[in-house]
């Protein structure tokens, strides 16, 4: 758990003491530490779990339809097709985390590129670029994601892109604000005086210093993305069966909740644990990096 914090600290090019402080504050935040711990467990489970379960996540077991937990060798029971819930939940967790991380990464790349450009170039360009962000902000984006999924068929790759393309707006705003602030700082002035091109300055001096707010934003975006995916799954536009995501498992579980409540409860608990961990870590990081907000 503390490895993340150490990595953060190591990645910061300057102000090591600031990062040390932040790490100390983060580790002092019990909720954030618990979040880191739970999240680490969940990541391990998502990566290694599916290979360790005795059942394949998509195997139909004809004698185990709606098997109760702890019967027929199914620890968490089985679904309406006799598929092992533990195997499916682990696979679903893997898919949801992957969607969360990848889509957030997409939003990160677009957001940083857009935000640093606008912030660093400034003037008319900045105004135009941010006006575009404003306009996009006021679009009913959920509807566009739905239309996208309808138009091009639901696939995980499209989901990465669609959700990522929606989430980059906030990122762009944050990054642009930070860039503008950093631009007038002395080390940037120095770099400019040393004859570095704008491209080099942005990559070497601005982007690394965005790390703080970006990390906070990322930890708060991933749960949003996971929720968005589950929302699409509920509407039948998410991952394709027999593949599972936490969202699709929950959507199916909600259907059968009177008959087999565990089908809803287990994936819902895993999802809540995932989202809460991210939220706690995000809050903890924000407090740690920006003590004024505490």
């Amino acid at each position, binding site marked *: 758990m503390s490895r993340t914090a150490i990595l953060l600290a190591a990645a910061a090019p300057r102000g090591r003491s600031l990062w040390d402080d932040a790490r100390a504050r983060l580790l002092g935040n019990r909720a954030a530490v618990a979040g880191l711990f739970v999240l680490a467990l969940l990541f391990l489970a998502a990566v290694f779990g599916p290979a360790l379960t005795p059942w394949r996540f998509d195997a139909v077991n004809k004698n185990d339809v709606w098997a109760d937990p702890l019967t027929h060798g199914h620890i968490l029971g089985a679904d309406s097709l006799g598929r092992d819930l533990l195997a499916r939940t682990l696979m679903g967790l893997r898919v949801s985390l992957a969607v969360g991380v990848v889509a957030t990464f997409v939003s990160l790349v677009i957001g940083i590129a857009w935000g640093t450009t606008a912030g660093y170039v400034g003037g008319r360009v900045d105004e135009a670029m941010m*006006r575009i962000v404003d306009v996009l902000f006021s679009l009913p984006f*959920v509807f566009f994601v739905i239309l996208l999924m309808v*138009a091009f068929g639901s696939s995980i790759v499209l989901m990465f892109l669609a959700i990522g393309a929606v989430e980059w707006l906030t990122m762009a705003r944050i990054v642009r604000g930070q860039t503008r602030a950093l631009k007038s700082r002395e080390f940037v002035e120095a770099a400019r005086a040393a004859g570095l091109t704008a491209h080099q300055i942005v990559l070497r001096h601005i982007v690394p210093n965005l790390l703080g707010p970006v990390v906070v934003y990322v930890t708060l975006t991933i749960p949003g993305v996971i929720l968005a995916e589950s*929302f699409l799954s509920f509407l039948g536009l998410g991952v394709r069966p027999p593949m599972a995501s936490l969202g699709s498992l*929950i959507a199916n579980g909600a259907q059968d909740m009177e008959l087999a409540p565990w089908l809803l409860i287990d994936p819902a608990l895993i*999802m809540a644990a995932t989202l809460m961990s991210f*939220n706690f870590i995000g809050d903890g990081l924000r407090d740690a990096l920006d003590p004024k907000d505490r």
Partner: protein
Amino acid sequence: MLGLIARRLFTALPTLFLVITAAFFLMRAAPGNPFQGERQLPPEIEARVMAKYGFDRPLIVQYGTYLADVAHGDLGPSLKYKDKSVGDVLKENFGVSLVLGLSALIVAGVTGIALGIAAALRQNRSADYLVMAVAVAGVCIPTFVTAPLLVLLFASTLQWLPNAGWNNGALPNLILPVAVLALPQIAIISRLVRAGMIESLRSNFVRTARAKGLPDCRVVLRHALPPALIPVVTYLGPACAGLLTGSLIVERVFALPGLGKFFVISALQRDYTVVMGMVIVYAALILALNLLSDLIVAALDPRVRLS
């Protein structure tokens, strides 16, 4: 103030144009057309229908015609519901979504603010932790989980409230959907208010007010609260978008005759005109609410210049 409104309206038009364009071409990129059901349509008849709705012309011509029609306020006929126009569909269903959305917004606002204040006044005590735990849960549990669970509890088991249905907007029918819609918003608003209150309780003007011996309640409501509300009002736009998203699910789960329920169905059934009509209405709504929240922020905080 008028300048701001004028400028916003000026940017609203290109935004709407963008929305219409994107939605139009996305919808047409989807495979399939709205005129095919389970039964076969003889080719010559299908050709005739396509011609009737102008679908035999090049896409760009259709797009131009559509823009011109929309400019005249004509959203066209529904392709799926042959007896209704898009105007009818919107008219019959918008009210339900509006009642639902506004009720949820009010409930979320009142409850969220109350919880936020309570948490801030008892910072780092058990009440605070309780409120924040509820807030986190509200953000972490998807609407489509809370909805069936609440139905199971209050409708199927306790039998206090109806399972679903609109019933002309009767209060018992509204409670569960509004609660489900409001819950995530309560979570976010209470967190915003708590943070804002903590900051403003520490600020000089509140300290001054306290020092002058004003009663606690008055200090909280008159002095500390208004600045703490600014982030909440700024959040109004996104909140509205969140409510719209939620209404897609809530209207479906509770079988409510609102627009959200129709959006997904219409998109899947390629009812182009209805989808377009809804996208336009929703975009206009979000634009209007963003403007409104800007105006309220200006009214609440004289420091904000409307530039």
